């Protein structure tokens, strides 16, 4: 992979430096996934796990 990129890189990057490639939809999707993941983790750990009775402390 590194080799082919080294070969292709000069020709690929000559133009607009990939600026026309703007995957805003993918960015949005990943943003939504990320938010779900963070909210789910906060809920599972801080509310469900630490919020329960009889937390094991030793």
């Amino acid at each position: 992979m590194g080799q082919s990129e080294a070969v292709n890189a000069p020709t690929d990057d000559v133009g607009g430096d990939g600026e026309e490639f703007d995957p805003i939809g993918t960015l949005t999707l990943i943003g939504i996934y990320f938010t779900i993941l963070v909210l789910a983790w906060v809920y599972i750990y801080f509310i469900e796990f630490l919020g329960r009775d009889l937390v094991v402390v030793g």
Partner: protein
Amino acid sequence: MHIHAYEKLWLALSIVLILALIGTVTYGAVGPGVAMVADSQSTVDPGALDEDDRFSEPRVEQVGENEYEAYVVAYQFGFEPTPIVVPANSTVTLHVTSRDVIHGFEVAGTSANAMAVPGEVSEITVETDEPTEYGIVCNEYCGAGHHVMEGKLNVVSQSEFENRGGDSE
């Protein structure tokens, strides 16, 4: 090598996510003091629990101001003592073992959950709040009566605990 700005962004976010996961677990250990069952307890002879200092008489005893130790034996198919009676707003250390096969010791709906392994002692320390009643279930399949194996953990007020007397002696 050219990396798209968005790709840099989600690489960074995924690293943040990993650090956040490690961070919350670290916080749990340092802040609320969440702990695991350790292997520091000395082993017992599961065939001779009636000769063991700790488990010959499954019980709850006071070991300090507001500190209690409970010795629990799981067997096919139940828990001794039942109910386990402990006072509210106290620190209780549960020592759980089994005299036959592997059992589970789960105080339903709480984080208190350990395995009861013959020969091994699972030690978990919990802090009780208000008086309430919990159910205890076995969550390791242990035989034909597994589904009826249950116990009780009753958290009672300090005065009620003292009135019961017998449980603390």
